[in-house]
């Protein structure tokens, strides 16, 4: 009796094990297959919609066919330029502080924690903040306010990746630099940061690619503009804004342009993510150590 009961029990346990393994595999398939399907669908749909006009022509009036998103691409470029000017220096500075100066202190932990929390704040709130900070005092929408919203969003990402990359630099290098009599700031800037610079640069690219697709903070800061504009003090068009307008509109031709725009954004993201992965997996610091 005892043996049959225990063999039943062990069979039951083995069966549970198999069932759970099956469920885990099922979950993986259920997640990965649709996600890959979405991705491939976006690529195919975008690739079939993309042509040269997309890059060199301005939008045409609704209902007409043809046209492109040249103004939106340039507009996104202006917005991202402003954002990078704000986000990258402050972000890198904060990252250097976290990894080199404040390492292990309570203040640095608080900064890191706040950066992570800030990373999770909805992008639309950033738009509201930029609106009340810049648009209301200026009394008009502008590319500058949109750039500020995006720039603030870049800071936590850049700071955290910079910190992560700097922490990968072996302590030996720091010690060697200090041992040669360099002052601390000199060693940080010319030795540690320089060693980690490929990683820091790709981290910045990732932050750049992320905010390139942000729409919500631009709706009431950059606003959108049907015409060619590079003036940071005026309304400006952006790629994601244009995708939003076109996707929710009724015209077949605009839908096509929206897919093409989505493809451009995806390519940017894929490039950035793979670069980061390449640099980190290869070891940023192979050459140095």
């Amino acid at each position, binding site marked *: 009796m005892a043996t049959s009961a225990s063999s039943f029990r062990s069979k039951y346990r083995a069966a549970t094990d198999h069932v759970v393994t099956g469920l885990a595999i099922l979950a993986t398939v259920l997640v990965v297959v649709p996600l890959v399907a979405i991705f491939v669908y976006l690529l195919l749909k975008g690739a079939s919609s993309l042509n040269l006009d997309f890059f060199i022509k301005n939008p045409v009036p609704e209902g007409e066919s043809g046209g492109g998103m040249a103004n939106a691409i340039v507009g996104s470029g202006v917005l991202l330029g402003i954002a990078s000017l704000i986000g990258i220096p402050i972000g890198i500075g904060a990252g250097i502080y976290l990894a080199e100066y404040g390492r292990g202190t309570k203040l640095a932990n608080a900064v890191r924690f706040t950066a992570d929390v800030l990373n999770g704040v909805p992008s639309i709130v950033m738009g509201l903040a930029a609106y009340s900070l810049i648009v209301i005092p200026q009394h008009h929408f502008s590319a500058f306010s949109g750039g500020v919203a995006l720039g603030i969003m870049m800071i936590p990402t850049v700071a955290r990746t910079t910190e992560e990359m700097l922490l990968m630099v072996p302590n030996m290098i720091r010690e060697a630099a200090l041992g040669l009599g360099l002052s601390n700031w000199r060693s940080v800037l010319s030795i540690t940061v320089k060693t980690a610079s490929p990683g820091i640069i790709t981290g910045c690219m990732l932050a750049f690619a992320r905010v390139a697709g942000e729409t919500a903070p631009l709706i009431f800061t950059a606003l959108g503009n049907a015409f060619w504009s590079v003036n940071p003090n005026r309304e400006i068009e952006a790629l994601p804004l244009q995708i939003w307008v076109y996707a929710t509109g009724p015209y077949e031709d605009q*839908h096509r342009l929206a897919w093409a725009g989505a493809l451009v954004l995806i390519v940017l993201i894929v490039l950035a993510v793979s670069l980061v992965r390449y640099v980190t997996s290869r070891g940023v610091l192979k050459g140095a150590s």
Partner: protein
Amino acid sequence: MLLCGLSIFAIVLLILSELMLRSGMAWHKFGFKFFFQQGIPDRYSGQMNYWDPVNGAFSALPFVYGTLVSSLLSLLISVPLAVGLAIFLTEMCPRFLRGPLAFITELLAAIPSIIYGLWAVFVLVPLLREYVNPALSKYLGWTGLFADTNPTGLGYVAAAVILAVMILPIISSLTREVMTAVPHSQREAVLALGATRWEMIRTGVLRNARIGIVGAVILGLGRALGETMAVTMVIGNTPAISKSLLANGSSMASVIANEFAEAVSDVHRSALIEIGLALFVVTIIVNALARFLVWMVTRGAPARVH
């Protein structure tokens, strides 16, 4: 450098103070009941008007409701799948699959919300409209939750599904991180006692990592609460409270995205900023809680090796 670090605090405080300043008008006018007051019955149809800026009806209740319903529903869909995926990736997956799968989830977490929205509008919504929603209302209609009166395919369910797709990579990658932080000795000890693999995962890994997994789920919730573009494109944008999950609704983020640029009055604008302020405070709290829980599990773990 210290200044740059401190600027992160300054940004949070600046956002908070600006939003408080600009939402002052709505706050003075409606007070705290802005978030739960009932609507005004419509003069002609008798329907509840919660939100009618032109006629001065301001109640954020339908938006709070829509945000909560769509986020919780999306967690219901994504959490089991995300945890299953994380278990597979950390405990069962053959080595050669691990890298590519991790890469795909990383990539999908970085795809902008507008692109998910685009996909949802042209693929997901027609799919729901033609097949899923009729089936749901046929088989589950008796619960009252799936009364199909909406011919568009938009609504809470559509929003929840696209949210689930978007937060899945985040929850699963964080769960994976937490599970990897559980020391190997725990696994070996349980296996040495003769446990099967599932028993090892249950008692050795999940029990140790559970706080962190809860943190990952809460972080996913935080993302879902504030997600704007994809939700705006599929939730239907109707300021109403419906028991049916297939009905059109509206969320806190979506109403800001839709109405802010064309706000009809200063009160309207101020009310929208107050909704944004509520969103900001809630996501700050939710994110802080989530980070804290994850940190509780991973703090002792060796630094992540890339």
